[in-house]
């Protein structure tokens, strides 16, 4: 009887709410001229999707692949990146990347969001509020910093990770994002990077590789069982990353338009092709297609299509996904063992190699009718050279500065936890908690 009454009350409340919505005809304030409601609505959704990629997407993807004693510590790295980078982005990151058009660094006009009001827009996205543009780009900075953590999982001291992340965001991410997206020298010379093949994936991948080299191998690497705690978490994480990527690549059109849709289709097809390719290679060479292999292939396809989406046609997304699955498989299973580096969660193998491959393929497949630029196939071979230049600059800057940052941080605090703490697990030694 009580439950029935409760249900009736809920129905009444819903009906009242619906009536209130439909009868509200006059908006409280007039929309700013130039700001488009559809674009704004899509970009709000896309912003939420990209934030979802880091928490819980990346947090689950990564923590499912580490051992049980390091699950919480791995989640803490993603979570801390969200909290810290968001505040730094609003404080000065946005201003230094996206205002002013200096070749090396942006301006100080929007420090602490000064002057950003209800009507302001950024020249890069004139149909959405500048505050939304700022928020959307914030989520990219967050995930890039969080991605790096996968290379040093299982062994980095939390305090050192925080110091490294802040310095890396300021000295690596901010300049690179400005050079390519904020009107800096790489963007001006025509380097194509739709949603972050260079800015996000290659930068995180190569920095992760350097960090893994500097930190050294995990204890027991190569002879002890370091198998994942729970790959079902990683599968859920991959699903969230995949869906979030619609906002990542689709949102990079910065408007609710056909280019956003084309980017999403290419993205989705590339993820499918990557998953199938990696799984098929395992099936033929090791007799079983692993779940970790299929999700790795999907993420490889997603990372690789990132710079190209918005410039290529849907079926080219499939080709890029196939190449991604094959090349990243090779990087994770052969390259890593050949050069003996312990990139714990294969940030370089999947994101670094994927971002690099995708940036090159963008120069080959770029289609004028989609993104306004032609690649090699449409008779513009110079585009490939420009892309290679972008890759070279990204590689040199990210690896050099990351190395320097790690050396400086290690003066103040050891990068690794003690051997005892590593054996005990980072959850208990860094955070005083543990999964039972």
């Amino acid at each position, binding site marked *: 009887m009580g439950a029935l009454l409760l249900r009736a009350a809920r129905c009444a409340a819903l009906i009242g709410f619906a009536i209130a919505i439909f009868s509200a005809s006059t908006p409280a304030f007039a929309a700013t001229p130039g700001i488009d409601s559809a674009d704004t609505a899509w970009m709000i959704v896309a912003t939420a999707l990209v934030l979802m990629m880091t928490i819980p997407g990346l947090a689950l993807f990564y923590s499912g*692949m580490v051992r049980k004693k390091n699950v919480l510590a791995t989640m803490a790295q993603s979570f801390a990146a969200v909290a810290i980078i968001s505040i730094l982005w609003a404080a000065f990151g946005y201003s230094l990347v996206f205002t002013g058009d200096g070749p090396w660094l942006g301006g100080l006009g929007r420090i602490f969001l000064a002057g950003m009001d209800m009507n302001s827009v950024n020249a890069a996205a004139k149909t959405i509020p500048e505050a939304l543009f700022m928020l959307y780009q914030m989520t990219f900075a967050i995930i890039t910093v969080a991605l790096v953590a996968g290379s040093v999982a299982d062994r980095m001291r939390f305090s050192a990770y925080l110091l490294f992340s802040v310095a890396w965001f300021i000295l690596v991410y901010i300049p690179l994002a400005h050079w390519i997206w904020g009107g800096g020298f790489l963007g001006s010379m025509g380097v194509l990077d739709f949603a972050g093949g260079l800015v996000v994936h290659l930068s995180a991948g190569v920095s992760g590789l350097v960090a893994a080299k500097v930190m050294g191998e995990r204890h027991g690497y190569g002879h002890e*069982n370091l*198998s994942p705690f729970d790959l079902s978490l990683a599968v859920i994480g991959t699903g969230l990353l995949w869906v979030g990527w619609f906002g990542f690549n689709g949102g990079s059109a910065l408007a609710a338009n056909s280019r956003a849709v084309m980017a999403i289709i290419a993205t989705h097809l590339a993820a499918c092709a990557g998953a199938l390719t990696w799984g098929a290679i395992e099936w033929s060479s*090791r007799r079983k297609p692993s779940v*970790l292999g299929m999700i*790795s292939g999907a993420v490889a396809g997603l990372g690789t299509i990132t710079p190209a989406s918005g410039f290529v046609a849907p079926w080219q997304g499939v080709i890029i996904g196939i190449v991604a699955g094959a090349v990243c498989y090779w990087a*994770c*299973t052969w390259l890593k063992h050949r050069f003996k580096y312990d990139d714990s969660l*294969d940030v370089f193998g999947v994101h670094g190699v994927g971002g690099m491959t995708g940036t090159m393929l963008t120069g080959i497949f770029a289609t004028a009718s989609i993104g306004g630029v032609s690649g090699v196939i449409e008779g513009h071979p110079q585009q490939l050279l420009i892309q290679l230049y972008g890759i070279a600059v990204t590689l040199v800057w990210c690896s050099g500065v990351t190395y320097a940052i790690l050396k400086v941080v290690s003066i103040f605090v050891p990068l690794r936890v003690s051997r005892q703490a590593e054996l005990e697990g980072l959850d208990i030694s860094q955070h005083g908690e543990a999964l039972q």
Partner: protein
Amino acid sequence: MKLIVAIIKPFKLDEVRQGLTEIGVHGMTVTEVKGYGRQKGHTEIYRGAEYVVNFLPKLRIEIAVSTELADKAIEVISTHARTGQIGDGKIFVTPIDHALRIRTGETDSDAL
């Protein structure tokens, strides 16, 4: 009285339980355990990294029965838990000195 400890394949639990209930065994304790015998382990591959997993998941069943029932119970467990493949498990039998039901204070065979 005998304590029968059996290590069996996890998916055989229901058959074993049913068989034991039919012959009048009305209680058991089951624990999830890991171990290895002749079966050794298996190999897992994660992105090309191969790990040999030595300990395989098994179930450990403990039942306490009267001496008369022990042989019958052992036979039931061995027939119901058998697949014929390596790794079917083992049965261990030990004598029980004393038993007590906590609620009523009944002892020995009354407590089983």
